C-alpha cells in the first residue's frame, strides 16, 4: 500500500499545471475564476476549442478519436490541476464525459465518425435530455414520444432541467418509441440537432438567480432514422450505460475545486473572527477531514485493478461528496454571518461562498438524489430487497 502518484504521473501533473496556469495568466485570463456555468458563453466556447487544439479537450478518449488514452489517474490529475489553476467549468462537460463515452461504447463506426470529431474539437456542445416533468428519479417513466416516419424520427414531448440546452448544439434524448409500452421497455436513445424549428428551449431560473437549466419542448422535431444509439427499444440499456459514466470516475478529480471553496471559508473565518468560535472550528475540521477522506476514497478506487467491479467506495462516492458540499455551503454561511446574505453585485448575483450555499442544494438532487443513492447502496451494495413499484 502506497500513497501518492507515480513519478510519471507527477510529471504529467506538472505538464498539465504548466499549460493550464499559462493559459489563465495569458490569453484566457479574462475567464479565470468564473464560477457561473452560464457566464461569457462565447469565450467559454473559445476555451473549449483552445483545449482541443492543444490536446486537452478529452484526454481520456482513445488517441484515434482525438484523446490521449489517458489513464484514470491522469484524468484525475488533470481535473485536479484544472481546478487548482482556477479554470472555469467546462461548458461541454456533457459532450466530453457523457455523450462521447456513450458513443464510443455503444455507437456504430459511422456514428463515431460523425459525432466524435466535433466534440473533440470543442465545436459541438451537448446537453442531456433525460428528465421530464413526470419522470425524474423514475426515469423509466418517460413519455416523450418518437415515431419513425419514413427516413426520419419524429419526436414530440417535453424534457426538463436540461442543463446548458440554451447554449448547446446537440441533445441526446431518451424517448418512448413503442406506443403503449411502459417502464424500461420500448425506449429509444436518440441524438438530435437542437438547431431546428421543432425544438424550443426555455430557460428556467434557479434559486441562485442563474438560469443554467431549461425546459426543452419537442413539437414534430426531427432527426434522421440512423440517429439512434443501439437498437430500437434498447434505450434503457444505453441510458444506464451513460449514467454509469455520470456516476463513475468523471467526478473523482473534483476535490481540488472543493479545496478552493473550503480555503475561501477558512480565509473568511480568519478574517472575521469566526475562526475563534469553537463550534466553527469543529466544523471546519470536519470539513477538512471530509475533504481528505473524499480524496483518499477516490485514490482507493483508482488503485483497484478491476475498475468494473463496483466497490463500496465507488457506490458511496456520489452521496458522500454531494452531502459534504451541501454542508460546506451551510458552514460558509455560518462563517459569514448575516453579511453573507447581502451581495455587492446587481442582478441577484453572488460571490463564491453564498453561491456555494445556494447551488449546493442541487448537488444532492441531480445525478440521482440522496434518497435514490441510498436505495442503490442498500440494494446493490448490501443486497437489500428492491423498492416495490406502484401501479401508476
Amino acid at each position, binding site marked *: *500500500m502506497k500513497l501518492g502518484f507515480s513519478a510519471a504521473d507527477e510529471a504529467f501533473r506538472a505538464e498539465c499545471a504548466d499549460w493550464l496556469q499559462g493559459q489563465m495568466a495569458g490569453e484566457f485570463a479574462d475567464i479565470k475564476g468564473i464560477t457561473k456555468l452560464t457566464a461569457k458563453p462565447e469565450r467559454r466556447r473559445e476555451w473549449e476549442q483552445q483545449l482541443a487544439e492543444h490536446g486537452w479537450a478529452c484526454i481520456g478518449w482513445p488517441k484515434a478519436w482525438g484523446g490521449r488514452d489517458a489513464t484514470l489517474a491522469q484524468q484525475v490529475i488533470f481535473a485536479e490541476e484544472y481546478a487548482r489553476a482556477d479554470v472555469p467549468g467546462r461548458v461541454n462537460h456533457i459532450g466530453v464525459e457523457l455523450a462521447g463515452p456513450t458513443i464510443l461504447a455503444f455507437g456504430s463506426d459511422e456514428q463515431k465518425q460523425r459525432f466524435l470529431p466535433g466534440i473533440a474539437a470543442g465545436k459541438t456542445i451537448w446537453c442531456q435530455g433525460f428528465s421530464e416533468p413526470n419522470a425524474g428519479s423514475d426515469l423509466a417513466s418517460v413519455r416523450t414520444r418518437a415515431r419513425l416516419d419514413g427516413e426520419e424520427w419524429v419526436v414530440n414531448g417535453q424534457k426538463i432541467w436540461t442543463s446548458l440546452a440554451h447554449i448547446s448544439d446537440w441533445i441526446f434524448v431518451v424517448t418512448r418509441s413503442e406506443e403503449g409500452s411502459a417502464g424500461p421497455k420500448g425506449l429509444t436513445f436518440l441524438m438530435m440537432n437542437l438547431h431546428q424549428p421543432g425544438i424550443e428551449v426555455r430557460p428556467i431560473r434557479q434559486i441562485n438567480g442563474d438560469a443554467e437549466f431549461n425546459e426543452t419542448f419537442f413539437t414534430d422535431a426531427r432527426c434522421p432514422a440512423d440517429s439512434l444509439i443501439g437498437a430500437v427499444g434498447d434505450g434503457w440499456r444505453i441510458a444506464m450505460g451513460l449514467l454509469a459514466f455520470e456516476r463513475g470516475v468523471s467526478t473523482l478529480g473534483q476535490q481540488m475545486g472543493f479545496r478552493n471553496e473550503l480555503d475561501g471559508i477558512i480565509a473568511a473565518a480568519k478574517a472575521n473572527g469566526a475562526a475563534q468560535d469553537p463550534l466553527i*472550528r469543529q466544523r471546519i475540521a470536519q470539513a477538512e477531514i471530509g475533504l481528505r477522506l473524499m480524496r*483518499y476514497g477516490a485514490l*482507493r478506487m483508482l488503485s483497484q485493478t478491476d475498475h468494473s467491479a463496483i466497490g463500496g467506495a465507488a457506490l458511496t462516492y456520489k*452521496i458522500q461528496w454531494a452531502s459534504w458540499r451541501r454542508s460546506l455551503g451551510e458552514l460558509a454561511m455560518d462563517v459569514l454571518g448575516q453579511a453573507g446574505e447581502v451581495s455587492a453585485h446587481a442582478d441577484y448575483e453572488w460571490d463564491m461562498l453564498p453561491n456555494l450555499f445556494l447551488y449546493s442544494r442541487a448537488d444532492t438532487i441531480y445525478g440521482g438524489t440522496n434518497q435514490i443513492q441510498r436505495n442503490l447502496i442498500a440494494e446493490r451494495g448490501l443486497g437489500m430487497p428492491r423498492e416495490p413499484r406502484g401501479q401508476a
Partner: protein
Amino acid sequence: MEFAFTAEQQMIGETARSWFAQAATSARTRAAMAGDGMDAALWSGFCRELGLSGVALPEHRSGAGLGLVELAIIAEAAGAQVAAMPLLGHAVVARAIAAGGSDAQQAHWLPRLIGGETLAAAALDAEVTADDDALTGSARLVPHGGNAGLFLVSRTNQAWLVPAGAGVTAHTPVTMDQTRPLATITLNAAAAEPLADSAAALATAQTTGWVVLAAEGLGVAQAALDRTVAYAKDRVQFGRAIGSFQAYKHRLADMMIAIEQARSAVYWAACAMDEGSDEAVLALHAAKSFAADTAFKCAADMIQLHGGIGFTWEHDAHLFFKRARSLQTMMGSGAWHREQVARMVLGDVA
C-alpha cells in the same frame, strides 16, 4: 496508484480475520468478561500460533519488521470480534520501547513481549513522583492494567518501564466495556527504569495507540453493519423482510457511507505514518476521530435495527456498542482530535 493492499497485506488480513472469527468467539469473549477481561488462551494463541504479535516491531528484536498498515489490518480484525485481548497495550508499549528504549531495554523486553511471556499495559499521564529510580503515585483507566506484567508509565515528557512486582498494585473497577477493563495502578516506591529516549517513546506510544484504536473502530463498524444486514434479510414483519423498509435500508446505507470513509481514514493514516508523510499527524487525528465516531454510530444503529433482541445481554450488539463508546473517549475525544486539525488548518488565530 497503489493505495490498495499488497498481496502480502491481503494475506495477513485473511489470516487474521479467519483466526479471530474462529478463536475469539462470543462464548469465549463472554467467559473473559465474566473473569478478568482477558482471554489468556486467545492472547497466547495470537502470540504463538498466529505469530502476529511482532508485526510492527523490528526484525532484529524478533519482530516481523512490518508497519502500521499491517498492525491496522490486525487491529481491524480484532475489533470486528471485540476480542478480549490486550493488543492495544502490547502494541503501544512494545513500539514505544522499540522507538525509545536503550539497546539493553529492547533486547530484554521485546522478545518477551512478542513471545507473550510478558504482557504490557500503558499508564500514560500518570500522577507519579520519581525518587531516583522509584515511582510513587497512581495511574487511572489503564487498559488491561490488571493483567499486565510490565507498565509503560509516563508523566509529561518522562517515561519509565515499571515491571509488576513489589510496590505495584492494580485494582480493576467494574468497567462498562468488559472486554477491556480499565485498571487503577498504584505505585509505592516501585522500581522503575527510565526509557533512554522518553520523547521518542511517548510520541510512538501515542501514534500507535491512535492507529490501533481507529482500526479497531473500523472493524467494529463493519461487523455491526454485516451482522445487521444479515438480520435485515432474515427477520420478517408486516409480511416482508425488515430490510425492505426504506427507513431501514437507508440507515444501512448511511452506515456503509460512513464506513467507507472510515476505511479511507484508517489506511491513509497508517500508510502516511509508514511513509513518514507530512500529512501523517493530520491523518491520525482524522482517523481516530472519524473511525471511532463511525464505530459508535454503527453499533448504536445495530441495536436500534435489531429491536428488542438488540437490547439484551445475550445478543452481542452491546459488546460492539460498549467497545465503540470507549474507543471514542480513549486517547483523546473526537472533539479534541478535531480541534488539533482545526489548529493545523487555521493556524494561530486566537
